[in-house]
């Protein structure tokens, strides 16, 4: 395993084009960057990523390497581009008309922003839980098994039944496991056939997590998965994330500093204007941030 250096080093790349709009912050930001190095190949490697919505420059020149089997927290004030960044990692930004993405994102060393990328495969590998819960207007069971069914991993159709290839047991198992992981099973085990729209907001959010887990992705992107949850469910989700980090690469957006500090291995701080200001080991970032602005943000003086 080789040592990989992450984030941009100004020294090594001094004449990289600099965004002109905020030259002043650019200087400031650059001086704050610090190397974050870890062992092993990065799972996700983002380089010089710029995102524009029309003329609106939402992410500025973000470069970051995310290690495998770890939890990475993204924090920063509202509107700084955390969701935008997350959506770049599985190319969900393609679905926004006005969005334009420049730069490179590699998953396992494979560039995803190139012609011929199979988006369906990519999103199977890089799953996502959205900021707002968005279950399908289907039964709870169908919501969870939706992905595997569509991928052909589970077939409970009439034809499969006739041919004796129905996997209803496997489906039931998968549904139970995913719902348990998402800390929802106890609340819904007796009404799996009810419509998911009848769940509370927090339950819907956990259902969306279960739905994402059922597909068994390698990377899980979570956009504030606990924002609508009570402390107990939040604790369960945090346990889940801890557990997931054994096998998966988790990238999580959160507004809750304590949560970020508790669950993440490394933390990236975005500040207004779409700048990645600091990225490093969570303890480092929280206890000893290099940038004054980051310290202000973390301690609540600025946001």
């Amino acid at each position: 395993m080789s040592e990989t250096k992450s984030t941009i080093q100004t020294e090594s790349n001094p004449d990289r084009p600099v965004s002109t709009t905020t030259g002043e912050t650019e200087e400031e930001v650059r001086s704050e960057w610090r190397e974050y190095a870890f062992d092993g190949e990065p799972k996700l490697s983002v380089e010089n990523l710029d995102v524009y919505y029309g003329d609106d420059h939402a992410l500025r020149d973000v470069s970051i390497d995310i290690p495998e089997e770890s939890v990475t927290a993204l924090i920063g004030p509202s509107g700084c581009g955390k969701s935008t960044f997350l959506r770049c990692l599985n190319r969900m930004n393609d679905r926004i008309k006005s969005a334009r993405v420049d730069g490179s994102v590699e998953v396992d060393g494979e560039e995803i922003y190139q012609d011929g990328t199979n988006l369906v495969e990519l999103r199977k590998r890089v799953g996502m839980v959205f900021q707002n819960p968005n279950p399908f207007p289907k039964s709870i069971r169908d919501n969870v098994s939706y992905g595997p069914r569509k991928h052909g991993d589970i077939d409970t159709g009439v034809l499969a039944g006739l041919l004796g290839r129905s996997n209803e047991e496997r489906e039931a198992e998968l549904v139970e496991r995913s719902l348990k992981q998402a800390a929802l099973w106890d609340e819904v085990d007796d009404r799996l056939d009810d419509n998911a729209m009848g769940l509370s907001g927090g339950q819907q959010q956990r259902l969306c997590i279960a739905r994402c887990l059922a597909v068994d992705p390698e990377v899980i992107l979570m956009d504030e998965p606990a924002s609508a949850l009570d402390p107990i469910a939040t604790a369960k989700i945090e346990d889940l994330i801890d557990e997931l980090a054994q096998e998966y690469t988790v990238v999580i957006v959160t507004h809750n500093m304590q949560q970020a500090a508790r669950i993440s291995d490394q933390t990236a701080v975005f500040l207004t204007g779409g700048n990645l200001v600091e990225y490093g080991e969570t303890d480092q970032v929280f206890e000893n941030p290099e940038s004054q602005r980051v310290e202000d943000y973390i301690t609540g003086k600025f946001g």
Partner: protein
Amino acid sequence: MSRVTESALIREETSTLEAIAGVAIGLCALLFALAMAALFEVVTVTDSVAGLPMSNVLGGLLAVVGVVVVGFGAASYRGLVPTEPRASAGAVAATAFSAIWFVVGGLVASQTLGVGLAGGLLGGGLLGGIAFAVTAIPREDVGSTLPAGALALLAGGALLTGVIGPGWSWTPFDLNATFFPPIVVPAVVMFCSLLGGWAAAKAYGGFGARGRHLGAYLLVYLNALAIVAVLVGLVAFVVFKGAPGVFEGVTVAAGAGPSTTVSAFGFSHTVVWPVSWPFLTNGAALMNDVDGVLPAIVGTVWLVVGSVLFAVPLGVGAAVFLSEYAEQGRFTQVVEIATNGLWSTPSIVFGLFGYAFLLPRFGGEKSLLSGMLTLGFMLLPLVVITSREAMLSVPDEYRDASAALGVSKWQTIRSVVLPAALPGVVTGVILGVGRIAGETAPILLTMAGGTFVPGSQTVDVIGGFQFTASPPFVANPALLEATSALPYQVYALVTAGVGGSQLNDPEAFAWGTTLVLLAVVLSFYAVGIVTRYYFRRKLHQ
């Protein structure tokens, strides 16, 4: 003249005066209902009720309403009832009352007093002005009760005294029309009861915000009731007129009906229906006791089924392309305008198209198939429009969620977008079926057989399928035969006028056919609504 400013969140007890206002509201509702009934000839204004002519009774009730309303206004003005009136009834009410009183004054002056056009205008202007002033200037309790109550009193007086009564008729100016009491009395009563009811409801609410709310509520509520009443009246009218024809010769007894033989695997079983309903099971023939419309019923049903089978897959497919795949822009706009235009194209144009384009291609004769396709073309734009609307209103979150799970676009459309859009699609099809099932012009040109279709000409689409030795291996001559349909049969009966010689009672036959048409369309509706309910339930529960 003390302004009552105190307001109670909870009114502890209703005063006698308030109760009286409530009674006035009830009277107005009763009057409104009676007038509706009179319009539909359920009751007759020339009849007498308890020894009094109906119009006098209505007039008396109206006068009572007028007195109560005006009295309540006066009582409130003198501070005898706790109310919270505003400073004025407002410009809208004033304008409305002045317009109403302008018409009343003008009519009374020029028609009853006979002072001519100039006199009429003068009288109208005078009364209109007074009404405006009376409504706008005094406090709300007087402004909104006096003009309405006075109108009810005036109309009630005219009816009571027989100025407008059973023997009366009115030919306005030199118009070529005469109004008779059966129309005029209900119309006047309805209008005055609406106004009186509005004023009474305001009074009951103690004027002010609550009064306005109650007044508006009453108007809206009565209007909604009136619409329902019109609908019910229409259906009832058709049912009454059509029932004798439809139920002619119906017998219920063991073995009375036709027999059906079911045979399978060499065994055959004959069922004899216990109901004989000749109107529904016969065609028209010289030897029949009772002529029926079976061929037309079957024709209409197949027509609708065929055009739906043709239009729905095509239309939904087009909608999927337009809303999910096509870049929203110039092209989709053009398609949208074109489909809207097609939907509002007169049906005779579709009929001519079918006649000139389809007929020559299907053997040159009118046929069921040309009718199906013509109506299918008519239905197509509506299916496209409503399906597209329905798909565009499916939230993008569902699509995003599905895409983020690594599900392809087509699978997303099939398993998320279409199910969510289905209730909307079904609504569109329901609307469309209502239209095409009753369409006459295109059928006339593309499919219709004779005026009286013998039972032997009932199409047998299912039994008509044959296997052939050469491609396409399946043929169905039944589709290529001319047949009848219910709306066409009604049209032919009414216009041809030659049916009298063959039918005992052509009018009863025509009304019976209409009733059956209504029943067939409503059954399609019912099927559609049940389907939509099913899909909705799946989405929401």
